[in-house]
């Protein structure tokens, strides 16, 4: 009460004083306008020591995984579409990469790949700068810090490898800039390769050795050396390529798997199987006994961060769309779930036929060893499909379009979209976790190989070929062919086409074929020969397409320096 009276008296005497008092009372402290982020990290405080640097490395893995498993252009194009291996089955005339002239332009497809690659590079650059800024004291050892730097540099090199292979001279960015940079210039390929070599050499020296990495899926010395060997190959440094690939083959305990292994033993969906089949079964990629795997992209069902891999969706035939049996019943009833037929087989999943292999992949490369090459066995390439409707007289019979009355079916849809051989390496028979009724909507939760020892042998074979040592090249190729029970190749037969055939046989859907062909300068030539898209033969590829167009937005936004376009765009 006394206080109130005091205020009252005060106000009666001089209210201005109250005002003054209030001003003081409400005045804020000096730091009232300081701004402190509450729910996000900034590059300034995100790299304080090994633990959060580790999170940044995880961020790079996450960035790169998108390129391998995403169900869109990037993965399909890198592995198959627009190369000699496949065309867009669901829509051969107008689908992705069915017409180079109108689709691979400065405003379509190219910008997506360019942006993705530079995103990896920028995220790696910021991390490298962040690690270099840390106090030495926060690290247990110099080796620990270097291992972290090495993984970041591996990914930076990985990003530049795509760029230099597809676009030639590209802007070389190694710093983490904190302003809007608009004066990029294209650096000569040699400079880009030099950085990649430097980064990979550092990575190969400082990453953990295989088997001592922190977790499955992490990058090891073996992965770095493998990628380095490819980079040497790209520059014609064949002996260095031989040395680097030999390092991978000889020094880390990798071996091609030659005996059956893994989780599905004794439980083969198709009644038979082999080691090649086992290599691609769910949960087999990460097994310690799998010493063929060098870098495995990690996918897992149900777990946060688990992601999915649109493997079936991309590469398999849309058999469930084919309509009726010749006697007018639904051709595929599919699994019977909760009182109704789903229309989908839980063996085949729900593919949508984006990537339809060319005849080259489906037939030509297998002809010499059709029956003995295990990679061509029915359980590895499913070539026969069967009507599935007990109400039909054709139930259980093999699907054959000659059974239908002539003129009642659309050949293109039948052979490009509904039924074509299905590579079981990308399928997960009976492992469709997420939705039994829908067979996963075409996505799987299987790990996938980014680098497998078989490819290292093929890189070394290519390097030996470059050194005109066909003997050694044939020996490396035969490592793979022997495992596949295929007839060995003779040194006289070895040429670049043979190596590319072997790559297709061994690595289809794994290899980034677009990079291989662009690296060799053979994209245009081989697409013209082998891309037998029935509605767009040769995908209308143009002479200049071996080098991709620089994205128009890179040119337009780069206002403080000129970026020249590649020829012909």
């Amino acid at each position: 009460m006394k206080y109130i009276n005091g205020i009252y008296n005060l106000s009666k005497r001089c209210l201005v004083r109250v005002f003054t008092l209030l001003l003081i009372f409400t005045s804020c402290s000096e730091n009232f306008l300081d701004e402190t982020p509450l729910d996000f990290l900034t590059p300034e405080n995100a790299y304080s020591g090994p633990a959060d640097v580790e999170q940044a490395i995880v961020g790079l893995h996450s960035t790169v995984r998108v390129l391998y498993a995403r169900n869109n252009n990037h993965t399909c194009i890198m592995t198959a579409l627009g190369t000699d291996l496949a065309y867009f089955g669901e829509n051969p005339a107008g689908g992705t990469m069915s017409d180079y002239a109108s689709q691979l332009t400065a405003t379509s497809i190219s910008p997506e790949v360019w942006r993705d690659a530079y995103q990896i590079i920028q995220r790696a650059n910021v991390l490298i700068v962040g690690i270099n800024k840390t106090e030495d004291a926060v690290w247990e050892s110099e080796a620990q810090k270097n291992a972290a730097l090495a993984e970041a540099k591996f990914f930076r090199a990985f990003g530049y490898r795509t760029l230099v292979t597809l676009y030639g001279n590209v802007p070389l960015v190694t710093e983490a800039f904190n302003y809007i940079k608009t004066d990029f210039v294209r650096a000569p390929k040699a400079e880009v390769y030099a950085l990649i070599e430097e980064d990979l050499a550092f990575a190969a020296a400082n990453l953990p050795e295989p088997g001592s990495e922190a977790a499955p899926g992490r990058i090891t010395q073996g992965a770095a050396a493998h990628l380095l060997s490819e980079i040497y190959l790209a520059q014609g440094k064949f002996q260095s390529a031989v040395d680097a690939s030999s390092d991978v083959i000889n020094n880390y305990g990798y071996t091609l798997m030659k005996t059956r292994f893994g989780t599905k033993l004794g439980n083969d969906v198709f009644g038979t199987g082999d080691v090649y089949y086992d290599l691609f079964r769910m949960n087999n990629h990460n097994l310690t006994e799998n010493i063929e795997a060098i870098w495995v992209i990690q996918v897992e069902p149900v777990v946060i961060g688990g992601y999915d891999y649109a493997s079936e969706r991309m590469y398999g035939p849309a058999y469930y769309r084919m309509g009726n049996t010749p006697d007018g019943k639904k051709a595929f009833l599919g699994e019977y779930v909760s009182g109704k037929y789903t229309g989908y087989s839980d063996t085949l999943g729900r593919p949508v036929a984006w990537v339809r292999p060319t005849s080259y992949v489906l037939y030509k490369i297998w002809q010499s060893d059709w029956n003995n090459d295990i990679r061509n066995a029915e359980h590895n390439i499913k070539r026969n499909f069967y009507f599935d409707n007990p109400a039909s007289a054709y139930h259980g019979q093999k699907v054959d379009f000659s059974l239908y009355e002539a003129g009642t079916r659309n050949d293109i849809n039948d052979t490009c979209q509904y039924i074509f051989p299905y590579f079981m390496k990308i399928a997960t028979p009976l492992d469709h976790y997420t939705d039994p009724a829908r067979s996963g909507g075409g996505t799987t939760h299987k790990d996938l190989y980014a680098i497998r020892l078989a490819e290292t042998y093929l890189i070394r074979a290519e390097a030996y070929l470059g050194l005109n040592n066909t003997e050694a090249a044939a020996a490396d190729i035969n490592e793979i062919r022997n495992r596949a029970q295929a007839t060995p190749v003779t040194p006289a037969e070895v040429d670049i086409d043979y190596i590319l055939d072997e790559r297709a046989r061994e690595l289809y859907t794994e290899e980034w074929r677009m990079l291989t062909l662009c690296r060799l300068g053979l994209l245009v030539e081989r697409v013209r020969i082998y891309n037998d898209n029935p509605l767009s033969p040769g995908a209308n590829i143009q002479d200049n397409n071996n080098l991709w167009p620089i994205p128009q937005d890179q040119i337009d936004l780069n206002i403080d320096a000129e970026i020249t376009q590649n020829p012909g765009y």
Partner: protein
Amino acid sequence: MKKNYLLKADELNLGFLIKLFRIMKISVFLLFICIFQVFADDSYSQTARLTLSMSDATVEQVLGEIEAQSEFYILYNHQLVDVSRRVDIEVSNKNIKNILNALFEDTDIDHLVMGRQIILSPKNILDEGVAKVRQPQEIVVTGKVTDEDGNPLPGVNIIIKGTITGTITDLNGNFSIEVEDPDAVLVFTFIGMLTQEIKVGNQTEINITMAQDIIGLEEVVAIGYGTSSKRDLTGSIVSVDMEEKTSAANVDLTQALQGYFPGINVGGVSRAGESASLSIRGQTSLSASDEPLIVLDGIIYNGNISNININDIEKIDVLKDASAAAVYGSRSANGVVIITTKRGKSEKPTFEFSMYYGLQDLTNTNRINIMDGEQFAVRMVDYYYQQSLYSWYSSNPPDATGRPVRPDVTDRNLAAQSLRSLEEQENYLAGNEIDWLDEVTQLAPIQNYNLNVSGATDRTNYFLSTSYTNQKGIMLNDEFDRITLRANFENSITDWLKIGLNSSVSRLDYSGLEVDIGNALSASPWANMYDENGNYPLDLAGESVQRHPLRNTLVDDVEVEDNVFLVLYAKVDIPKINGLNYEINYSNTFNALKHNTFYPPTVFEGKDNNGVAEKLHGEERGWFLNNILSYSKTFAELHRVNATLLYSTESRTGESSSSSANGFQNYTLGYNAMHLGENQSSSSGAWEENSISYMARASYMYNNRYMLTATYRRDGFSGFGANNKYADFPSVSLGWVASEENFLSNAGWLDFLKLRVSYGLNGNQGIGRYSSYSKMTSSDYVFGSVTAIGIYPEILGNNELGWETTASANIGLDFTFLDRRISGVVDIYNANTSNVLVQRTAPPASGYGSVWSNIGEIHNKGIEVSFSTVNVKSSSLVWNSGLLFSINRDEITKLYGGETDADIGNEWFVGHPINAHYNYIVEGVWQEEDLFNGVLHDRYYPGHYKLKDINENGDIHADDDRDIVGYATPNYRFGINNSITYKNITLSFFINSIQGGNGYYMDDNYSSVVAGGTDAAYRKNQTAIRPYWRPDNPVNDAPGMYYSPRRSHDVYEERSFVRLQDVSLNYDFNKPFINKIGLNSLQFYVSGRNLYTWTKWSGWDPEVYDNVPMMRSVIGGFRMSF
């Protein structure tokens, strides 16, 4: 609201004053008592204490000091009261009677104190005058004065024309006056109302209704941290009286502003409960927010504008020019909208109730023409046919010989084959077609109920209201439900202290996930609506791109927003220094949002893992503390001074948490039992932002003619870079009331003419907090089966980020002619914005998307005109018209320093408007003759759009063949308003238009115009706005069904439209009838909105041109008060 001036009788009149003085009625003085004095009580004269210490001062000076120290008005006649007499006076803490007794001791001057009114007069006259107040004359006229709603008007001045004899109405609006002869004319005047003159004749009862003065020169206008009369404004301010806006289906107050005021631009609305976009004048920024600042009851309002019940709003004042808005400094560059809620008016409590009910559908232009089932089937035949055509074209045939023949599309079996799924084929052959647009839209009801009570007593003023609104959107499941409550109180605790509370509570319910109209547009008309179990299939016809358009009706969705807004204030009249006031106000806002959704496994979003539940909770809190010191004083009757000082601080915080879960074995509990989901994840967010502001404003007016206002504001905002927290915003403005000048005061046709000139700086901080920081994003990975949290930098920050500043000049003219039959406002402005805040797209090689920066300069200029006329005005017919026109031009004047900088990637060009479209120019469609004649561009074919080959090299290339195609900004806007009242019926209508031309108001309409494509043609329904090109139908404005051009491009169309936006018909019941049933007023109305639109834009409504239709409504309702 006190008027501090000495009123002298000799200035009032007139040659025959002396003669008249004998019969002067004391009541004449009461003419000058305004409504505020009507409620005044005598206690003031007893409690007010004054202290005077003056020597050798004239009586006039002493009286002036008394007025300065107090709220008294002193009235006297110079010729009867000698005020030049010099006196010494020394009184301390005395009441007025004591002082007056002392002052006029030993003179024959007596005084009469009535409330705050003091009348000085020779003793005999005063006695006689008081005695004569009720002295009968030959004719006694009585009557009642009411406003248009039938409410009694107390305090109306009534004077006998040509005399100074008069009276005022009492609290119930009644008056009584004696006149000498039937020729007498009574003049009724009241602030804010049109003056009326009535000849007495042989009437003894005269009841009049006073109409509101639309011109409203004496209207009080909110100017930010204070008020002013409209007459005295020097800035460009538009006032909106919300009374007229309650006859339309305005759920949100932004809708009520649409098109009615030049320079105030309001976007269209397509969803229930949606707030329209609001902007004032042109765009001053490239990327920062364009939204004006909202001020609610004196407090900067950061909340959702939908929270405000439109019926609670007394009026809205919009500060358009720099000088007016400058009091809000850093946030004022986009203009300021000041909303004032209602207060009590009359001692008798007034209840008001109103309601309306109506129906809404799509505006007439909305119905996008998607293909019907037959066209849908045939298009695929053409899709394949045109592919074979292109193979043939690419062989360069010299003529049409050998051209593939178009399949017979009338063969239904053949067309059926082109459909991709068996079910579509079967439905096609059986004719089971679905019109998906019909399925997803509805005739949507809207209803609103509003109840309030208000009143004012000696010390307390109150307004209490509640409202309920329920609106369904035209898309199924689009629902909006709102309840608002408001309580405004103001209490005079003492004569020097007033405290008040304005509070509002609202609950907005947007529950229900509207159906996806985009899905309906692309859905196959031949798909099955239901699967064999009677459920919606996950995808239509097994096509994963075609989600079921109605699936959202199966989703359980709750979205509710609760809001509390409180303002507590105290106003202190500081003693001793008359005219000095201090106000402190504190406001607190709180809003909470929850959004819970459960997608069952039967819809696409929930199919992946046995249902998906999402739960989001968010809350925001904020407080404001304003200290306002103001001073107002008139010196020597000619010099009026106002000053305002402000110190203001603000703080806002927010936090949110969201969680999601999937993998439910039991769907009944949904989002309420997240823990039953097998996979759960959560995330959270938090933020804080603070501001400090200082403001000073001074205004000076000389002789009601010349006005000067200057303001200065300094603002600090936490969201800017460390080196740029503070900025200063000065402004100055001048006004000249030319009609007060002698050389114009005799111009009978001119009522009022004022010229305004202003210049000032305004800021824009509309980029939000933390924009100067680079930000890391998290992204999870998994090693083996172990989750790993990953981070990477996603957003690049800018430490130097600072304020965007707009310097603008405004010249305005306000005029009223011909006895207020014609009035208008013209404003011309010119604004330069520097350090423009830009979200600049970075080259992709940087690895970042876009970065906030301060670059460049922008120039805006424009003209705004509004005219209103009273075309007919008789006792039974009144016809008012209004015309509005505004034009604005913006231009980028600087980007990165160069005179001809062109940032193609961002589509910014020095010397061009901000929203330029840079693209290829479509010139028609290539035809077969072009092919046969060999004039086709490289890799183009018949049926392709013909792009302009600017450098004429026969090849279309990005470097040489793109140019500025047009601008998104409008060319000009206009509106026409008419209101016709015949007896009890009022019809009003409003036509609104935004026009393009000269390349303005253009936008890409590719998706509406191009029917085909590649993948899209294959799997989706297509637009049928224009028939697609075929060899046998070689149109020149649409490409073929298969369309995969070598250079991707846009197709631009002009969005110009003229819209019959509002029509309303009101019926007012006669007062006597209404009064008999105990009501003060009763009005019925019917109104329509967006009834018809004329436009050449193809596809959706030109105003909301993306994939959402705009609404048309018709409502009926009534209002009553009692």
